[in-house]
């Protein structure tokens, strides 16, 4: 379990992770906030349904892909946590649905 060994940054950011409230330090990524809250599994792989979590924390491995505010395939380590965000694990491959299309 990750713990805060330095904890000086304000934590005004609260987002939703599959129905649970997660508090993030201001400016930190969704991945860091979730790992700090004890979440290790971020998605289920499209090929073999295996659990995966953040691996590189710098945007190169693409193993932290999540559904953030309805948009699939977001790199949780590259997205800054913001209040009101809705975050969910990505199960399998992203599906392109009609409601994602912008009618404009």
């Amino acid at each position, binding site marked *: 379990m990750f713990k805060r060994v*330095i904890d000086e940054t304000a934590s005004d950011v609260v987002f939703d992770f599959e129905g649970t409230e997660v508090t993030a330090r201001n400016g930190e990524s969704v991945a860091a906030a979730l790992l700090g809250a004890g979440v290790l599994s971020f998605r289920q792989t499209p090929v073999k349904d295996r659990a995966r979590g953040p691996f590189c924390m710098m945007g190169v491995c*693409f193993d932290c892909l999540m559904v953030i505010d309805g948009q699939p395939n977001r790199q949780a380590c590259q997205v800054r946590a913001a209040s009101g965000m809705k975050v969910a694990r990505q199960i399998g491959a992203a599906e392109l649905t009609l409601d994602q299309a912008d009618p404009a």
Partner: protein
Amino acid sequence: MSFDIIIIGAGPAGMSAAITASDSGAKVLLLDDQPTPGGQIYRAIEAAGDKQANILGPDYMAGKPLAEKMRALNIEYVSDASVWQVTDEREVGYSTGGQARLVTAPAVILATGAMERPFPIKGWTLPGVMMAGAAQTMLKTSGLAAEGAIFAGCGPLLYLVAHQYLQAGVTISAIVDTTAKANRIPALSHLPGALKRWDLLLKGQKWQSEIRKSGTRIIDDVSALRVLGETKAEGLSVNTAGAWLDIKSEHVFLHQGVVPNVNLSFAAGLDHSWDERQLCWRPDTDTWCGASIDGIFVAGDGGGIGGGLAARAEGEIAALGALGKLGLIDTTTRDARAKSARATLSRELCIRPFLDTWFRPSDSFRVPIDDDAIICRCEELSLKDIRDTIEIGLVGPNQLKSFCRAGMGPCQGRFCGLTVQELIAKQTKRTAADVGYYRLRPPIKPLRLEELANLQIDDDT
């Protein structure tokens, strides 16, 4: 708005290039994919205070004045910018906040830095397994550390992060050192050259002796590793001195050195050469960091591993090269101003042959030995899957893509390219250089069709 120089990456090389160029009056666009400047080595440096200084040390804090200087100058710095292409016409495509843009400049400096070398062992895909550099990133950006983690692998960064954990008062279950004893003799021939940086060698010794004194368990003479667990990491199985030993932990941090992050330089069409000592590809460059395409420069670890201070020096040299090329400074000024950076660079690079050889990751950790160890994380292809595909008689990594999709998932081969290349070389009895690498094409970062459709082209003609 038009720019003289576009710099990609705001780490030590990129920031130093931006400062040098801006100081000479060039209009600079500095693009970076992180929320704040610093790259990986100086990640989150602007927020660092006394606590970070105590845990992360002076080499990290040295990035602070650099970031301050970059901010103080008239540099167009864009954070959270994902650069997805650079063409041979120096058209740079990037997205920020869902808006894609295309901007062109007479000079482009790639300062894309390094990434950690793949460490393909059984179980390395399980949640709870991370690269040691990722653990360090967590410490830098969020002050987060994992109690009772296992650190496994080789190289200076492994010991640096372990040392930082101890500074933070965090207990480590074990350090599993995979450095091969067989490396010692070949490395010793490079020791005389390395002695110019005796201070660095001493620093490494100091970390190691402090870690030993802390009572942390250190295991060496390691020939094989397997991560334990089915749905998440539960520990590490270590073959040490011929016997298997299980260590429990839900956090396993792996590391066996860093390699240039070459996806952008390959996709830009630059010529690269295989570096047998660093076991990686590096873009070909001239004495001004100029690459094979006119007007494109490569600075820092993205061009070969030299470390943070070498990267700063190269950033300066590349910027001077670009300024000279654009006629913003004359060649006499350029040559004179490059002198101190060149001296720093040669001083920083003199230790590399020793470090590269001493910490050369073993063959059995670069290409897995367990049949079911995953090689391509995205497409979930094991050693057996890929070996069986090579067996059919294919000649290189690009054919492998068509046969089994290796390297075609979201990471675009970043975490399997080197393994696949070396596996093909081993199996077909050729050299890694001869086998070659995946052909990489833009976009090198995910780009939504909607962003591309709304592409904003900055054209000042």
